[in-house]
């Protein structure tokens, strides 16, 4: 079966999600990758290690316009007779996959969290991570967008062949005025480690407690809804039912009580550590490790302990 995978190849390195989607597609069929922009052939060929046999690259545009990318993918799907198209369920996938679904008359399974089951249904997160659903696609062609951190990238092959490709992407109707990419920040949805703070930290002036630990761990930072509502932290750091849902390997929550809406956004985490003064905080019920104590004392100790651990390992 021919499977086509869209990968964003902009930037210095691939996001981990690029390796995840290629690994995922390899479990379904023979993988061709489609991408656009100016990435070097040697970089694109790396995707072969994760299972791509061929990488098609359209050099005629380097943006992330949803219509141009959609047209390019549709052209590529026809060329390789793909009946399954795979995206990462990231901000590009969320814009492009629905358009492609209409264009190709292909059912879209958004937010898949694993490979198709034996009965062909595809597992997805629903109710903001409070439950799972199993989706059957009723059309011949299907599109799947895979939640970041849902499967481990697997290196199985060697370099892929890279081919230049004319995707007939056409014009964009959206003009980019400015792009702001804060340096050094790890994008939250893809982060494997996350340190998060809540109202218990009392004010934005105390956030070094969170960022110091995050820096030591190489983690992304997040926060609860009251914190972003009070503008202590930017909106995009808000995790929970009305913020972003994340599924890192490790989620450390300090000064967050664990309301059901917050848990919805983080209960896909592999391991949860909760630090709270209130031993009755509901979050402890969802935690793997708990520390009943004052975040103001515990966080600096934890940061020191991580520093010590790194020095000796």
């Amino acid at each position, binding site marked *: 079966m021919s499977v086509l995978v869209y990968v964003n190849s902009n930037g210095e390195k691939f996001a981990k999600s690029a390796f995840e989607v290629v690994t995922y597609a390899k479990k379904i069929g023979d993988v061709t990758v489609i991408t656009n922009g100016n990435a070097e052939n040697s970089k694109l060929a790396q995707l072969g290690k994760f299972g791509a046999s061929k990488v098609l690259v359209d050099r005629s545009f380097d943006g992330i316009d949803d219509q141009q990318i959609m047209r390019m993918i549709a052209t590529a799907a026809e060329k390789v007779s793909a009946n399954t198209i795979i995206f990462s369920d990231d*901000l590009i996938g969320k814009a492009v996959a629905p358009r492609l679904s209409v264009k190709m008359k292909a059912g*879209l399974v*958004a937010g898949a969290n694993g490979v198709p089951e034996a009965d062909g249904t595809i597992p997805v997160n629903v*109710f903001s991570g409070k439950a*799972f659903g199993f989706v059957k696609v009723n059309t011949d062609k299907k599109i799947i967008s895979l939640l970041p951190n849902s499967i481990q990238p697997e290196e199985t092959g060697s370099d892929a062949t890279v081919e230049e490709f004319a995707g007939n992407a056409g014009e964009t109707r959206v003009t980019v005025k400015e792009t702001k990419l804060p340096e050094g920040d790890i994008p939250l949805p893809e982060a494997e480690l996350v340190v998060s703070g809540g109202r218990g930290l009392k004010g934005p002036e105390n956030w070094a407690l969170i960022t110091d630990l995050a820096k030591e761990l190489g983690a992304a930072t997040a926060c609860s809804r009251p914190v972003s509502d009070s503008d202590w932290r930017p909106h995009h750091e808000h995790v929970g039912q009305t913020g972003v849902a994340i599924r890192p390997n490790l989620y450390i929550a300090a000064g967050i009580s664990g309301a059901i809406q917050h848990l919805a956004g983080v209960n896909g985490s592999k391991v949860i550590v909760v630090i709270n003064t209130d031993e009755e905080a509901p979050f402890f019920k969802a935690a793997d490790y*708990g520390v009943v104590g004052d975040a103001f004392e515990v966080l600096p100790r934890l940061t020191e302990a991580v520093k010590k*651990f790194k020095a000796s390992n």
Partner: protein
Amino acid sequence: MKILVCISKAPDTTTKISFTDGDTKFDESGVKYIVNPYDEWYALVKGLEIKEAHGGTVTTVTVGTADDEATIRKALAIGADDAIRIDVLPEDAGQVAAEIANIAKEGAYDLVLLGKETINYNGSQVGGMLAEHLDMPFISLAERMTLDGTTVTLDKEIIGGIQTVEAELPLIVSCAKGMAEQRIPNMRGIMAARKKPLNVVPSSNAAKQTTFEKYALPAPKSAVKLIDPNNMDELVELLHNEAKVI
């Protein structure tokens, strides 16, 4: 300026999720429905702000049964001028987008707003699908939007940051946090909403491209392991050797 805001209902955020009929159906017993927060707080209120600043009308559109009318009235109470309900049970994003596309084409709207996703299915699908049906530019996950004539300037989330973009009307925008502030309807709004037009139109029987076959709940967590707050070395050791996450 004709503004269309897509509204759907969603279970209240405090709802404990469970399933019935052999885990094939969401158990609605005792569930309180609200307007999907992204549709209400950001898309609808942004629509109202634009109308207040530039004139025009705000129409809501919902794909749903008579059970949806309470949440539609809530949107009217907050300030929408009129509402359209397409009379069919929404079961698939492709179906919903195709149904709304028919209405949007007929009404020739300048601006279509919707929330970035619903909090029950989290698909973030309808906006992009609608854009393709209507052949309009689509700005996804916008957190700021200003209008100058027919030119719209928006800040949208991109991977790892924010992008400022410009596009011309007509346009479809999915709205994320930051776009507007939640408005609580007042008594006058609630009274007025009862008399505002809520037009029920028949479905075009759009095809369902996907089906939810069954559901499952996550396995319950085992009991939390408590660590002495004075012994963070132990926690780090456990995260390394037991949990193997660092």
